[in-house]
């Protein structure tokens, strides 16, 4: 393993120091427990929107802290859910009368740790609610699994819930909107290579020279099946099919298409895949009205991509377009 790190145990903390130095106008970092907080937090009268999870998915979540998106992010160790005390620290730093919404990706560890933090907050008479995002169509959603994982949809959810909170929506309204987004967003990912967790020192899984893991999670957890490598046209068609048929999305639907790099995919390939997805959706009469293309929810140095579709309406589109000023997403600000 070659990495630009010092002691693997210090990776997250040292990285957060760099994040803080780079974006002092947007955010600040508290250490021990590690929390990334909006520079002007707590914002009086505003619902706090908080998310978090294992590190290694950057820019998620710390890169989305700032005006119009998250009030705080709680980074755990690499690929490890953060602990309740860290979530609690994020709540304390940001949450007032208006309460807070916790955006939790559906992984056992995240759910359990945020749950505990929520209970602790309730004990302090703070109005803290949670929503669990589970947009990954690769996983069968049944009692025989831990349920679907939270993946690409998380980014869109954080943007939209953040915009609603920023415009002054109540906690009830922000929560309702978040649940609406969760209900109409779907994703799927593929991996060409595996990530290497610093404290593990070797790739998280072994993939043959001509194999693709179809339905990968953001920790490199497998999903549906291993398939032989195939041309981009075929692969993207497979991905689009899996998402579209799941919700399902149909002719005339207005959507946001999010083409995400898992980390190490060259942008030239990412845009190539995006172009194919646009074409396939147009063929189905699905109208792509907004798009996001880039590495926004990653899995360290994993090569691969994910596609996310969110069904839009006027309100969601307006919230998507609203100003945002974070390290990783910025417009109209």
């Amino acid at each position: 393993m070659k990495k630009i790190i010092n002691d693997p145990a210090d990776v997250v903390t040292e990285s957060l120091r760099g994040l803080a130095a780079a974006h002092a106008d947007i955010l600040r970092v508290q250490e021990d427990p590690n929390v990334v907080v909006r520079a002007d937090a707590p914002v009086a009268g505003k619902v706090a929107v908080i998310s978090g999870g294992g590190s290694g998915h950057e820019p998620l979540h710390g890169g989305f802290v700032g005006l119009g998106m998250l009030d705080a992010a709680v980074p755990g160790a690499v690929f490890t859910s953060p602990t309740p005390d860290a979530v609690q620290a994020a709540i304390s730093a940001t949450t007032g009368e208006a309460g807070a919404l916790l955006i939790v990706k559906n992984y056992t560890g995240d759910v359990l740790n945020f749950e505990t933090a929520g209970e602790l907050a309730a004990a302090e008479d703070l109005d803290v609610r949670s929503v669990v995002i589970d947009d990954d169509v690769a996983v069968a959603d049944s009692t025989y699994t831990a349920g679907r994982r939270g993946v690409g949809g998380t980014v869109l959810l954080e943007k939209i819930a953040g915009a609603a909170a920023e415009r002054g929506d109540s906690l009830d309204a922000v929560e309702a909107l978040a649940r609406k987004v969760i209900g109409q967003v779907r994703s799927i990912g593929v991996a060409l290579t595996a990530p290497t967790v610093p404290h593990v020192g070797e790739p998280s899984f072994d993939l043959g020279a001509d194999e693709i893991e179809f339905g990968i999670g953001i920790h490199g957890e497998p999903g549906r099946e291993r398939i032989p490598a195939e041309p981009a046209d075929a692969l993207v068609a497979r991905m689009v099919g899996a998402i579209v048929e799941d919700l399902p999305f149909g002719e005339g639907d207005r959507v946001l298409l999010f083409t995400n790099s898992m980390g190490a995919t060259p942008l030239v390939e990412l845009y190539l895949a995006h172009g194919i997805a646009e074409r396939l959706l147009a063929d189905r009469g699905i109208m792509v009205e907004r798009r996001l293309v880039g590495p926004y929810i990653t899995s360290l140095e994993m090569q691969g991509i994910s596609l996310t579709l969110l069904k839009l309406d006027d309100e969601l589109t307006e919230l998507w377009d609203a100003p945002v000023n974070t390290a990783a997403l910025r417009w109209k600000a």
Partner: protein
Amino acid sequence: MGCTPEGVANALRGAAAVIAEHRAELIELDRAIGDGDHGENMNRGFQAVVAALDGAVPDTPGAVLKLAATTLISKVGGAAGPLYGTAFLRASTVVSNQPELGAAEVVAALRAGLEGVQARGKAVEGDKTMVDALLPAVAAAEKAGGADVAAVLAAAAEGAASGAQSTVDLVARKGRASYLGERSAGHLDPGARSTALLLEAFAKAAR
């Protein structure tokens, strides 16, 4: 012979040593059907428990267990952190502030721990989780109930070991391994393995 606070602390120190020794093995098991962090998470947590005990050993066994619980909750993260944390918390509650633990209290603590894990994680027998190690451990401890602490823990350790082994053939239905579906069969569950290691360490400390 009952368990003093110092005895419980020693058992935890022994557990920390065993986890450290098996860190790489637990990582490897989790790499196969999870995300490869279980050994690191457990090791970070138990090293923190040792550090906390080095500060001062609380004066009842229950308080020692509670210190372990809060430390694990705030240091382990992942799925295992809240689950083991809850187990120790429930165990500490059930033994309240008794100065020493006899065999009956140890059995009760083990059962409380199991119930805590199940209450939090909703896993049942056969889901391929630490529950599959804990269930037979508690059953064996209860069967050995009349005996002394050492015998209870020895029985529990044996139950956990064979329970952990039984997870190899199972298809996971909880936790990260469940994403693998059928492909999860043929692998030992890392959480079940760490449960077996902990109980083995506790049994050794009690010998």
